[in-house]
């Protein structure tokens, strides 16, 4: 056994579905999936059935999340019409950023109106970042507005070559911009849709081989700062349906997938730790979790199963993959929550 100790990993982008869709996930099962996968802190997105775009909804979420096994923060949301709540939301210690949807995805939070977008960038207090879902050349507009209003911009789930190039150029020009990439965009391409059908559908969609190579290069050279799972659980039944919803679960496989990338020499172990801990901690100003760590057998191989997940979705797009890196121990603030790979 080659046990190595790492800090508790941070996932800055998850959809834990509560309130509104607890048949897919709730804060307890989502947090169980997180610790099983080596994460001790995660930040939940606001696009619930009733989106987190008011202080009441935010308070409700904070209360419901108290059952979680690990620490959870929240990104506040906007529909372009709630700017008057920004200052008070941003002042909450539980809030880590503002999520802005510039493309269609799950939920009803798309902001397309340019005047509204301008208002969002103008009003959000700039000490916490704006996170954008902006695909392709939509991203250029987001970068422009962020630069105009001096906002820190975090580009979520970067997936296309052109997006990597835009972020690289913005960084060259010293714009305060960061980017995250999801394991499914790193390890899969659109060809997967032929065999996996609805199970390979997510937003942004899986890209081409060229996109995939650009993502790996961007992660290795520092253009892409973090790995974020975009854990977006849906049930098998929903994914098998005629109209499968977008999104795949990722909390229980992400860390091992990144150890696979280390093993394949796509990235270094230092890069892995930066992408899953140092950089998200810095970007979102995550407070120290004292006496918190994970122990991973980095050499041990395991096969992603067909069931037995902690997530209520109970499936993975990586079923059958053999991955290195078994999460053996997770300790959060001195309390052992995972021992010998099992949640206590």
């Amino acid at each position, binding site marked *: 056994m080659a046990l190595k100790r790492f800090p508790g990993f941070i996932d800055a982008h998850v959809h834990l579905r*509560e309130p509104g*869709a*607890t048949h897919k996930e709730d804060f307890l099962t989502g947090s169980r999936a997180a610790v099983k996968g080596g994460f001790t802190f995660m930040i939940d997105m606001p696009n619930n059935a009733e989106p987190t775009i008011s202080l009441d*909804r935010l308070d409700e979420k904070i209360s419901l999340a108290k*059952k979680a096994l690990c620490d959870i923060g929240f990104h506040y949301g906007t529909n372009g019409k709630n700017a008057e709540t920004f200052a008070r939301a941003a002042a909450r210690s539980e809030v880590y950023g503002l999520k802005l949807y510039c493309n269609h995805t799950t939920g009803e939070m798309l902001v397309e109106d340019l005047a509204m977008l301008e208002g969002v960038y103008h009003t959000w207090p700039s000490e916490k970042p704006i996170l954008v879902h902006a695909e392709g050349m939509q991203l250029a507009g987001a970068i422009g507005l962020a630069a105009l209003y001096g906002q820190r911009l975090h580009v979520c789930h970067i997936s296309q070559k052109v997006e990597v190039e835009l972020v690289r150029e913005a960084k060259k020009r010293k714009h305060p911009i960061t980017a995250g990439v999801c394991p499914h965009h790193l390890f899969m391409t659109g060809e997967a849709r032929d065999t996996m059908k609805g199970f390979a559908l997510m937003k942004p969609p899986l890209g081409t081989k060229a996109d995939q190579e650009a993502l790996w290069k961007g992660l290795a050279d520092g253009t892409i700062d973090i790995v974020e799972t975009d854990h977006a659980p849906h049930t098998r039944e929903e994914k098998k349906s005629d109209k499968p919803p977008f999104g795949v679960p990722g909390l229980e496989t992400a860390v091992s997938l990144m150890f696979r990338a280390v093993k394949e020499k796509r990235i270094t172990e230092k890069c892995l730790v930066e992408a899953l801990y140092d950089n998200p901690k810095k970007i979102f100003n995550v407070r120290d979790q004292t006496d918190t760590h994970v122990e991973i057998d980095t050499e041990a191989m395991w096969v992603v199963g067909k069931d037995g997940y902690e997530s209520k979705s109970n499936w993975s797009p990586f079923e059958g993959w053999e991955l290195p890196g078994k999460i053996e121990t997770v300790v959060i603030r001195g309390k052992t929550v995972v021992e010998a790979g099992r949640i206590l």
Partner: protein
Amino acid sequence: MLQAPIFDPLKTYYENWEEGPFAGFADGELLPEKEPRFEFLNQKISYPIGIPAGPLLNGKFVKAALDKGWTVPVHKTVRTRVRESNEWPNVLGIVGIEGDLTLARAQEPIVVAQEYKEPLSITNSFGNPSYEPSVWQKDLKECVAYAKKGQLVMCSLEGTKWEAEWGTEEYVNDWVSGMKMLKDAGVKVVEANFSCPNEGVASLLCFDTPKVKIITTAIKEKIGDTPLVIKLAYFKEDALRELVKEVGNIVDGFSAINTIAAPVVNPDGTQALPGGEKRIKSGICGHAIKWAGLDMTRRLAELRKELGMKYGIIGVGGVTIPSDYKEYRDAGADLVMSATGAMWNPYLARDIKTAYPDG
């Protein structure tokens, strides 16, 4: 899979009372009950599963529940005088929401129809009707005698301000005298229904902590050692803490939750339930409120630990498949109950016992 319901939504409350139960509760199959291995409020029970106040209209329904292995059936809420049922329809399927009925979603109209599908959620609106105490006392005595070793028959009661000029004292007395009637009928664990929405959804009794304290204190003085459970609605965080601090050492247990009230409409947008303003809103139960029952169960369990109290917890809300039962047990419920789930699957208790033989 949904089966034919034990309560026929196409019939009135009174037709169901006279002719029911139906389907699986009338098929004559008697399921065995194992030796008592669990304990709830000092009562030895065979398994921590039951049916909450609601679907079991009278002794025939309670006996059928006992026959089908529902170890702890609760006779529907009764009153100390006759109260008529709301006009038919009383039960309708929820067709208008996907996922959970969150508190925000419950502010908007929800489409209902005589259509029942999985995951099952329904609305029910009866107005807590009651027969004369002599009727339900006779039923309860028979049911208590009918229960096998390890089974526990409970009954729920709601006190009523019968006369306009009544003050708090008379109202409290109605609760107390009703509870005494339950005890006299041989009921070993009684429930006070403090969360019935027909008394006004804006100000449920359970949210009035001082009044709950007065009533529960008076009841306990009268019924002595008979355990008292109180039925709660979904509480916000601080309000629950305040209630538990005040009455957690007076009552013996909490049952949570009741329904979540929401405006219900027909597919064409018109009011679904006849009866004017008082029936614009109706209680929603089943799968869509499971999140709320679980959340309350977890918080009650945490408060019990934090405050060093010993009350029992009955988890209710959206238990329609065996894994729902397990979620409630994991959340800290000492006893789990299913109403909507039991109505459309009378064999659910057997399925749960098979899936989780160790409880």
